[in-house]
């Protein structure tokens, strides 16, 4: 009998995350080719709103695990619940978003099920009769194409697939009971904390000039800061720049920083790891300056310059200043 494709629904604060609908697109393609169903699994507590929103999401069936024990469950218990359900339905593939949630849960689920997991995937498709995933290696400058011969957990980067068209038919919802008494309780969520707002809100800027590790040295930051000024934009950065303390956390773009959609996002010396792309790929116009033509940032950029930022940036600053003085 054909086995289903299972999609793990990501949700927070009663809202379904947009990655879920993208996973359903990938899942629908696979399910069609494998001749199986598409099943969405949602776990948590007080899920009425989430399940309501999922009914027309395009899945054939929704599995709902709604239990008070899951309200403060950490990764260990969540992983066990998902593995319990997966053991019952034995899906051919389990699709998860490669977000912070997926990064934590994917290896746990795969290990409990004794199957492989492929994380950070940018594609999954049928190729020559085999389900094949594509995932980055080496800062994303290379892609591995891997054919899967057995069941696996596939964690897909956000933005890899378009959202699935809502369906006109409501999916059946099946409630799945779990053995919550026997869930591990050695880790518990105590509280959720929101980062306090900083001095600048890069999310409001129309032009963002962003630096990455390619800046090389703290002393060089003013070169790019000057460009941001000349363009009337704000300076932002990738995570490593914050990690070493060169710019404050509020300037960080990405999965664990801010999500921005400026009119212009100018990335200077940023490779374009998924955790960065997540925070800026919906910008209206993305311009990338990078020495490496294989840098994944060029995969989302509208305009690219393969070159040294220390040549291009000063020239652009000069041009912007001259144009400005002409206007004034």
């Amino acid at each position, binding site marked *: 009998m054909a086995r289903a494709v299972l999609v793990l629904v990501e949700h927070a604060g009663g809202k379904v995350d947009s990655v879920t609908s993208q996973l359903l697109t990938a899942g629908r393609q696979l399910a069609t080719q494998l001749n199986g169903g598409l099943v969405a699994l949602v776990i948590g507590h007080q899920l009425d709103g989430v399940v309501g929103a999922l009914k027309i999401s395009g899945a054939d069936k929704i599995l709902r695990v709604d239990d008070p024990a899951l309200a403060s469950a*950490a990764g260990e218990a969540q992983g066990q619940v998902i593995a319990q359900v997966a053991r019952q339905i034995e899906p051919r593939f389990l699709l998860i978003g490669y977000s912070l949630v997926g990064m934590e849960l994917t290896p746990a689920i795969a290990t409990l099920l004794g199957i*492989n997991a492929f994380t950070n995937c940018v594609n999954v498709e049928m190729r020559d009769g085999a389900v094949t995933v594509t995932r980055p290696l080496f800062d994303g400058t290379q892609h591995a194409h891997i*054919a899967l*011969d057995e069941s696996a957990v596939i964690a897909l980067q956000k933005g890899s697939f378009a959202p699935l068209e809502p369906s006109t038919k409501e999916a059946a919802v099946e409630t799945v009971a779990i053995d919550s008494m026997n869930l591990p309780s050695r880790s518990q969520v105590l509280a959720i904390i*929101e980062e306090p707002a900083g001095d600048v809100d890069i999310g409001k800027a129309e032009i963002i000039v962003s630096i990455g590790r390619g800046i090389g040295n703290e002393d060089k930051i003013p070169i790019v800061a000057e460009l941001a000024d000349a363009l009337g934009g704000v300076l932002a950065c990738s995570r490593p720049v914050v990690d070493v303390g060169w710019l404050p956390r509020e300037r960080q773009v990405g999965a664990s920083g801010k999500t921005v959609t400026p009119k212009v996002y100018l990335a200077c010396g940023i490779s374009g790891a998924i955790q960065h792309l997540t925070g800026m790929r919906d910008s209206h116009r993305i311009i990338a300056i990078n020495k490496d033509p294989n840098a994944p940032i060029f995969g989302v950029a*509208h305009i690219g310059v393969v070159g040294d930022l220390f040549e291009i940036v000063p020239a652009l600053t000069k041009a912007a200043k001259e144009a400005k003085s002409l206007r004034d």
Partner: protein
Amino acid sequence: MNIAVCCKSVPGLVTDLKVGSDGKSLQYQSQLLAINECDEYALEEALVLKKAHGGQVTVISMGGIKSQDVLYYALAKGADKAVRVDCDSHDPRIASTVLAAALKKLEFDLVLTGTQSRDTLGGQVGVAAASLLGLPFAYAVVGIEVRDEKTIIARKELGGGRYADLELQLPALLCVQTGIEPLTFVPPARRIRARQQPVRSFSVGELGLQTEPLAPKGYRILSVRPPERLHQAELLQGSAQEIAAALLTKIRESV
């Protein structure tokens, strides 16, 4: 508090990265293996915790003899003991199986790992090892507070500026996020001295592992090649001045 830190050695400065003649592997000119940056943050955090709470820090690395350098580096930073498991694999299932078996041989209250390695970008090994060992875990941890002998509080990232504070009972495993502590500099003299310290090494057989479960299975690597661009960027060429002028026009028309 005794802490075990898993550190991977990855190619340091990679030049001339290219796909091997089999089309399925990567070849590069990199003589040096360096500590994977994410793991270095885990090591730093372990040393900070040791300073505050006492105990020993043991670094553990899976890899060939070349990865011994990374262990010396960790010893120079202040780790007390170093363990190498002689096994070379990029398969996360294998790496977590081997590391979990090695961790079983050690005494620890806490295991720290990084979030991902720069070569395989998988981010799986820490949590997978925790699951094999039956330990509670958290991923992308930005702060650790020791409550008492048996419990810690870990703050982990949820993304988008949100965090969760977790209480975990020890022993536990945490995948530490970059930036958790500033990286400290190790003077060359100390690095040289560290090479005198012993490194315990295990073969997989000594860990009681059979070779059969240590073979990759269930998948085939078809090819490794530079990314195909679905959405082709318009590439600007010319002198810096010409490119700057073109960019300025594009920026102007966008706002």
